[in-house]
């Protein structure tokens, strides 16, 4: 470990861990102390991530700020952290959403201590996945990020009766947990296979990604094991047809967990495909790219049409996440530098955007206890601020220029169009369908006459909630209007991968 940045990176990953450990000894009934403590932890993470992002040097080396400790030398396991151009924005994303999620959880008063302990562990896991340069620890953090979801959804979630079917929080929690663990099993198989194969070839036991990326795996091996990574990580990214855990998880999850779930957790999957699959198994990635882009296209169109048929706000946004993650998968599958750049930016942008969505839906649900858009109407009269921010998220979602999603999507469109024109066309069509369901949702919830008697005591978003929404909107606008810097950073991470892929 050397240099200020390395120390900061290490502390970024470790802080939520220690924070959770320390929080476990707090008095459980002092809610105010617990909230403020968590806010400080989250804010410090945000500060570190912002510093790392701002000072990030897009120069020569791929992985920067290396933190490296021996952990189990006989198996080649090292605790290695490092940042590349791809991960810096994602780490920042995680910090932003964690901070926003903690603030938006001001109203959690059921066992807040336990809630925040699990939330911090989840966040620590996500930081770890993004920063790990060692597959063993990457997998460890990956699991660490998944497991708290079970308790967070199962204990603090909500059950909903949709008339024809029922979605309990227990069901949602179980589903999220089982599906994600199933995905991680596939990932783990592939990781072990690579470890064994690499030891066969080089004679060195090594879980480190830097070492493994130098190994020349045979083409047959790559073609066999890339699908494990693609599907395994893809499940977390909402790859069709393994996507249903995501909307159901959202419906059951509390607001902050939804934000982290769609905002960060789903990004882990796409990040894994890019940073593990495509980096370590380039031949496999090339061979399977048509499948990935095909499933990504299905995600886009299918998710958008499904969202159009939904009535529940969280389902609409859940399926829109499926649709938007489709753009990410599509961009990755195009194997085009511009498209992959766009995919990474879309991860960032979609993370912020869905977080904003869920924050605002949480505000609505907390006040009305309704999420059915056929019942809600005309809320704009009473909840103007909420409406504006939900509209911001919606407009970002449908790819309005000025917000960062547009930048990401246009890059994906260009990249996919010039590799697979038909897919490019379908992607554009998907964006048009998005407009339909987003405007339908906004129109149904906020426009039209309001029932004055029913919503007499309805209040708008309070200062905290407005602040969170403004923070997220600020990032959407910042990189929508001036994407140069973030694209430059992402590009510096993507170009070496693409050079290795030979495209």
């Amino acid at each position: 470990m050397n240099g200020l940045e390395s120390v900061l990176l290490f502390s970024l990953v470790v802080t939520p861990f220690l924070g959770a450990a320390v929080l476990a000894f707090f008095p459980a009934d002092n809610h105010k102390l617990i909230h403020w403590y968590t806010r400080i932890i989250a804010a410090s993470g945000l500060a570190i991530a912002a510093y790392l992002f701002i000072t990030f040097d897009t120069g020569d080396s791929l992985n920067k700020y290396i933190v490296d400790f021996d952990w189990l030398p006989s198996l080649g396991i090292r605790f290695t952290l490092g940042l590349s151009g791809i991960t810096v924005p994602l780490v920042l994303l995680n910090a932003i959403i964690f901070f926003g999620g903690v603030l938006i959880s001001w109203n959690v008063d059921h066992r807040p201590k336990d809630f925040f302990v699990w939330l911090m562990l989840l966040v620590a896991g996500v930081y770890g996945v993004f920063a790990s340069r060692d597959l063993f620890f990457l997998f460890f953090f990956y699991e660490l990020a998944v497991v708290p979801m079970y308790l967070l959804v199962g204990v603090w979630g909500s059950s909903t009766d949709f008339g024809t079917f029922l979605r309990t929080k227990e069901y949602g929690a179980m589903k999220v947990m089982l599906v994600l663990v199933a995905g991680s099993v596939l990932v783990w198989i592939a990781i072990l296979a690579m470890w064994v194969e690499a030891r066969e070839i080089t004679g060195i036991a090594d879980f480190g990604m830097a070492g493994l990326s130098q190994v020349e795996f045979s083409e047959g091996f790559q073609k066999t094991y890339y699908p494990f990574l693609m599907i395994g990580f893809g499940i977390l990214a909402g790859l069709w047809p393994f996507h249903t855990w995501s909307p159901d998880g959202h419906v059951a999850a509390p607001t902050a967990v939804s934000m982290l779930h769609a905002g960060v957790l789903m990004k882990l999957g796409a990040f894994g495909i890019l940073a593990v699959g495509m980096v370590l198994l380039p031949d496999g990635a090339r061979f399977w790219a048509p499948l990935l882009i095909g499933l990504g296209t299905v995600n886009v169109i299918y998710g958008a049409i499904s969202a159009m048929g939904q009535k529940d706000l969280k389902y609409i946004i859940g399926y829109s996440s499926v649709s938007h993650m489709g753009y990410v998968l599509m961009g990755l599958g195009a194997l085009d530098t511009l498209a992959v750049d766009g995919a990474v930016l879309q991860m960032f942008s979609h993370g912020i955007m869905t977080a904003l969505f869920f924050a605002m839906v949480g505000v609505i649900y907390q006040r009305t206890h309704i999420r059915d858009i056929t019942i809600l109407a005309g809320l704009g009269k009473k909840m103007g601020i909420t409406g504006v921010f939900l509209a911001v998220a919606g407009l970002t979602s449908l790819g309005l220029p000025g917000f960062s999603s547009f930048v990401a999507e246009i890059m994906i469109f260009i990249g996919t169009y010039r590799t697979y024109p038909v897919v490019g066309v379908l992607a554009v069509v998907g964006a048009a369908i998005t407009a339909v369901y987003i405007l339908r949702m906004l129109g149904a919830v906020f426009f039209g006459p309001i029932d004055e008697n029913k919503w007499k005591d309805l209040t708008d978003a309070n200062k905290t909630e407005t602040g969170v929404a403004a923070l997220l909107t600020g990032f959407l606008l910042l990189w929508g209007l001036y994407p140069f810097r973030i694209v430059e950073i992402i590009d510096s991470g993507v170009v070496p991968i693409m050079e290795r892929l030979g495209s």
Partner: protein
Amino acid sequence: MMEWAWLIPAMPAIAFFFLATAGRCLPNWSAIAATGTMAVAFIVFWFVLADWFSMSALPEVKAFGFSFDWIKAGGSTFTWGMVIDPISLVMVGLVTAAALGIQIYTWSYMSHEPRFTWFFAVHSLFAAAMLALVLADNLLLLYIAWELVGICSYLLIGFFYDRRPAAEAAKKAFITTRIGDVGLLIGILLLFAKTGTFELSAIFTMVENGGISETVITAAAVLLFLGAIGKSAQFPLHVWLPDAMEGPTPVSALVHSATMVVAGVYLVARMFPFYEHSESAALMVTLIGAFTAVGAAAIALVVTDIKRILAYSTLTDLGFMLFALGAGGLTAGMFHLLIHGFSKAILFLGAGSISHGSGQTDIRQMGGLWRKMPITAVIFGIGALSLGGVPPFGGFFSKDEVITAVFDGRGWGFMAIALLIGFMKALYMGRVFFAVFLGKLKPENEHAHESSMVMLAPMLVFALLALFGGFLALSYTDGYQGFGYFVFEGTHQHPFHLNKGIAIGSIALAVSGFILAWMAYVQGSLKTEPIIKRFSGVHRVLINKYYVDEVYQWVIDKVVLVFGRFIAFFDRAFINDIGINGTGSIVTTTGRFMRYVQSGKLYTYAMGMIVGFLGLALAWWVS
């Protein structure tokens, strides 16, 4: 001064950000901030224009632009830059003037509205987006501005969001235009894939020297035109424009005159080299333009809501412009766009003034209003005569240019259609003017009153422009040899020329159109009821706008949404309940059977041990 041209779109954009963030705190400043910035933009425009003329000594200097890097990734650099050439100058002039005038008008018209600030904020953004659209030197920035224009129209049409029709109209406008945008974006992507750049000048160079194949040019031209169809409300994506009346009147004025709808025409004009190089695409533009113009003019003759008549007249005029562009008449199309912009601004502001003063929107409830609102009547009359194509009003010159261009480009048959459109324009313009202002004053309109000077002043300015704008076509000095020398493509300088036969014919048709309208709605010698009775079927079809809306509504309700619900159901019932839950059920069912192994009875476990041992022994023996 040209290097400051970026101020033109930037000023209203700054106003938007100021009003959107801090506007709540300073409500009284909103109008001043918006109008002030717009005025600055307008002034900058004049300096830029002056600069342009001082530079025009060098004919090869067609454009001046500057740019900055917006994205740099994957070996490509995307820039934001501006192009200043005659087409963009005309558009900037129109947009800044119209936006400024309409904002001043709004001071009075919207003064009672609590969300005054928000209106000015979005209005500013609308203008900024339109200005960026017309100044963009590359397709990416053009698309960005294009989308922003769309979203502003959504916000403004849906300004009265608590009224369900307004919300629905806004949604319809955005989604309909968005469908066209799919084509536009695909066209842009196609061009980028083939040329590797978004820069207009680079693309045009490749078009000129054959760097792009004919097929790609045609495909791109058609795809780009899809975008224009959406934005300029051409058939079959025209349905949103009449409904857009749900927005406040100043919005309608802005949408119909200078922003939004003319964006499509501008796009075709801007991409004109494509249509020059692709005869089939140009023919498509002509046909769609002509078809829309005739169809919409027929509807304009029967509907009775004043704003709807004006809306269908806009459709007609937009079709008319595209008609000209498709026939190769860039100058004519742009000129008509300019004159139409001023005239239509008057008509809409006038209509707003009428409904503001009398509370009526249906022309059957009006009549004789000139006694109560004489200034409005005069101004509205100028607009109607101009669009009706009566000399010496501006509309006459531009209409004549269009018909001449059509004749030159497409021959007699199309010229006849153009003349027919000209006649219908005169007829419905006469109808709306006479029915509203002449005739007997109805008793319920006794309380009608003239609007305030704040509203009338901008109308007066536009009236003067509509009145004398036509003379822009003529040549005066070496520096300005007429509109046709100013706006042209390639080497086809197009001086204003009067084809005497066509001019006489069009004047005769225009005047007869007004006379017919006068007979029908003032003098009464021509009865409309018998005609309606005689052609009741046609009338019903026209009143119902050819049932296009109904068909679309049916498709949306019965196909799109049903399909969406089906997919949602499919996802839940099949993918989830069978696919995902099914996997879970297989595991739990297996477990439910397997658990009987766990009997709780000691002797079965012991038996398991023994059987296991025997099995091992057997295996050992076998091996």
